[in-house]
């Protein structure tokens, strides 16, 4: 509501005026907010809910397939890999400052998950890996604290907590062995205090942050720790070793066991994604951006290619944002930034044209190497991430067309790179328009 309230001469109602409005609070949106703040603009972030970031691995992927296999429309091609790597490095710095270091291959400071020089990681010196609940090695790039997989061939002991849902150390061990019965992989299980039957991973993670409870659990684990494993071995635990205080919990386990400790990614509800989402949110707060969750952007006013205002609606009411530049980071189909109407896919806020790849929406195989067409649906943009016909709108993350983050192993990288660029472009627009940055 921007008209003057009749009975109140000067109060304009729920109208806010950040310089940059970021629509969407996922990885791309938050990175855009950080970038815009770094460049000195005032930033507000609005988001409908939490979401895809929590569900993911808590690590940032870069690229798991050859670069030249990517099509022309791929966001990496739009930006160029040197820009992508710059943004990833910037993101790494921000998270380090926020107390949640994400490092290629794991930390090199001799911490609990030191696996040697950065990049020594996973398979033949390739990118870092995390271990999944099937015992598979899944490549990634920036690894969350305590999640780096030990190099193949290192002795591994998989430790489980009986009653923890969706985890069985035998299955992880079998996967890690990869059919080789002589592989140095063993496993064990303890009962948690109280022998609970059905433990929620987030509940257990929270409990392990309590010193007394943790001491008890560590003692039980120590009892069954195989004697013959030395410092060069790694103990793999399900990823429940704490929430925000995960590093301290991981270190406590590592110290008591005298082994490296690393975590195994679980199916949702999974803790590492939650940790990253919360760390990111703290970083954005620290940077001084305003974050409102629970407010879906429902209306946009555009005049001559300039976005004038965006209205969010939620239980708190309708709030009008009049910003100078806007970043659209609402996600793709999964994040609900692209919606379906009957059988067609739309971008509902600005009505941006949505590019749908030719041919069948989905491959007959569930996990085709080339990925699925429907995952690549999105909005097409120019090299500065602007959709056609708009001068102050930038699009980033899963809303963009042209990539399959799961098949290509590039989800985090695209979000961080396009988010960073979108945020910087938005701030540059603000500065260029003569708006003083604050």
């Amino acid at each position, binding site marked *: 509501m921007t008209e003057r309230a009749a009975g109140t001469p000067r109060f304009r109602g729920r109208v806010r005026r950040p310089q940059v409005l970021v629509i969407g609070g996922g990885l791309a949106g938050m990175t855009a907010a950080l970038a815009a703040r770094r460049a000195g603009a005032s930033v507000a972030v609005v988001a409908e809910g939490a979401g895809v970031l929590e*569900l*993911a*691995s808590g690590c940032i992927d870069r690229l798991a397939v050859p670069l030249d296999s990517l099509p022309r429309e791929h966001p990496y091609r739009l930006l160029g890999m040197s820009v992508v790597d710059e943004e990833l490095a910037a993101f790494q710095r921000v998270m380090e400052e926020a107390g949640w270091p994400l490092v290629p291959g794991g930390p090199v400071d001799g911490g609990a998950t030191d696996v040697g020089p950065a990049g020594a990681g996973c398979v033949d010196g390739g990118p870092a890996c995390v271990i*999944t*609940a*099937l015992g*598979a*090695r*899944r490549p990634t790039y920036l690894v969350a604290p305590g999640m780096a997989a030990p190099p193949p061939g290192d002795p591994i002991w998989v430790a489980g907590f009986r009653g923890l*849902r*969706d*985890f*069985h150390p*035998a*299955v992880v*061990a*079998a*996967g890690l062995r990869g*059919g080789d019965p002589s592989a140095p992989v063993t496993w064990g299980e303890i009962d948690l205090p109280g022998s609970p*039957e*059905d433990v929620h991973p987030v509940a257990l993670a929270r409990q392990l942050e309590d010193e007394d409870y943790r001491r008890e659990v560590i003692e039980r684990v120590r009892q069954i720790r195989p004697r013959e494993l030395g410092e060069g071995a790694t103990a793999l635990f399900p990823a429940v070793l704490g929430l925000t205080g995960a590093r301290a919990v991981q270190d406590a386990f590592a110290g008591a066991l005298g082994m490296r400790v690393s975590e195994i*990614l*679980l*199916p*949702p509800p*999974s803790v590492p994604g939650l940790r990253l989402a919360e760390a990111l949110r703290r970083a954005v707060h620290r940077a001084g951006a305003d974050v409102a969750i629970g407010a879906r952007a429902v209306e946009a006013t555009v005049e001559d290619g300039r976005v004038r205002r965006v209205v969010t609606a939620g239980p708190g009411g309708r709030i009008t944002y009049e910003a100078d530049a806007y970043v659209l980071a609402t996600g*793709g*189909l*999964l994040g*609900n930034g692209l919606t*379906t*109407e*009957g*059988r067609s*896919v739309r971008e509902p806020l600005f009505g941006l044209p949505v590019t749908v790849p030719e041919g069948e*929406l*989905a*491959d*007959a*195989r*569930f*996990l*085709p*190497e080339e990925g*699925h067409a*429907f*995952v690549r649906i999105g909005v097409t943009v120019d090299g500065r991430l602007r959709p056609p016909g708009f001068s102050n709108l930038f699009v980033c993350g899963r809303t963009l067309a042209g990539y399959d*983050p*799961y*098949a290509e192993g590039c*989800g985090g990288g695209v979000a961080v790179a396009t988010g960073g660029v979108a945020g910087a472009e938005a701030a540059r627009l603000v500065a260029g328009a003569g708006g003083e940055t604050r």
Partner: protein
Amino acid sequence: MLQAIVIGGGATGAGILRDLALRGVKAALVEQGDLVHGTSSRYHGLLHSGGRYAVKDPESARECAVENEIVRRIAPFAVEPCGGLFVRLEQDDPSYAERWVAACREAGIPVEEVDLDRLRREEPLLAESVREAYAVPDASVDGWRLVQGNVAAAEALGARVLTYRKVVGLLMDGSRVTGVRLRNVATGEEECLEAELVINAAGAWAGQIAAMASVPLNVVADRGVLLVYHGRLTSRVVNRLRKPGNGDIFVPTGSVTLLGTTATPVPDPDDISVPQEEVDELMRLGAEMLPMAATARILRAFAGVRPLFGSRSGGNTREISRGFVVIDHAAEHGVQGLISVAGGKLTTYRLMAEKVVDVAAAHLGVTAPCRTAEEPILPPPDPAAIQRLIHLVGRDRAQAVADRHPASLPEIAGAIDQPGGRQIVCECEQVTAGELIGTARQLGSPSLGDLRRRTRLGMGTCQGGFCGYRAALLLVREGIIEAEQVPSMLAGFQAERWRGVRGGLGGMELRAAELNYALARAQLAMEPLPAGKTVEMIELGGAGND
């Protein structure tokens, strides 16, 4: 020495096996996949009142009316007596409606006109353009439970059932059929089984079986597509009151709603592909009756192949009678030891079985009368087991569990009563660990699909994205499978679930599809199916009617 071998583990075959067993015949059933692999699990699940045949095929209609009442009585565990409606839309011919009402009455089908205000209250999602509505005793029947119940009853009387055994040849002694040659689909091993009489109840494959004895049997494979909607859109079966055609029926079954169907003759009875045009056509037609069908979430789409018996092929397959025939090949073609049954529909399975077994009994010199119309298939659920279940999972869920496991309730209740037995594995359908373990122990070496077909694992909102993995872990914990088997079991389970999800993809389900794909790829790093393996080879089973 076996007296009879029944080929085909669908409704007809299972019904025949039970009837044989009740009449004291020593019999075995062989089935190429899991039970209910074929059409009986891949149709709309309607227990016909007969209304759909009243005008065009009054004899079928009459049969349906009678058998509907019988099936409800003998198989209450498999029937949801939701009732049915026929609704005429504004654009449908009112004179057809008149003829229909008269024809129903003629055929003995109870028909009652429903006042439109009451209709709007009870079925609020139906289109505004409904002009007339009639209630009939349609019901929704669960093909799996029906077949599993018949099989359990037959096994209790000494019959044998061999699944995952494909008939690759008939044993012949001159012009006499003496048995079957089977190939174990999982191991590739072949074995022979001999009997006095072979009964060909192979449904859409019946023609292929008959050809093994060089006998002609013209079974037309007619493929129909069905959509599975995520929620329950109607409380009753809703038919369109016009000449039977495509996309004219909604059948609620449990927590989902089926919309069907189409009719396309196909040369191959294994062709269960789902053409996009037929999906679109179904949505368009369905939306005429129920507008939300255009936008509501579609979980899956699947196809089933109807086995139609007709002496002419091609043309409009709806014109071929859905009545059935029993062919005594000795009389017809001079080939002894082989009887075939073709055509028909699930609602009249018991009648078909009766007619077949009458012919078989005559050959075998068995004089015991048929009792399948009177005898309930299974005894009522053990009250002690029910009480135990109520105590364990509450009254609501106790009924659901009892319906799912009518033949083995005490064992299932016992398994749920073990430590951890009450843990919910499939949250969408509230399937407990005890149900899965109890079922798995009865099967020996089950795939996740075998468990799904018996417990509804993975048939709800998440389509197995979360619960497939959890179920596999449970089987490892119970020592039913090895840890090393988990990746390939999961790959097969997910591939089969994907087949159905992909068929109906578009609309709201795209998000769920992306989530399951993301979890499999990025969170679990699940392996794809090994190259060269098909879903069938790993999953071994049907995927429909869920």
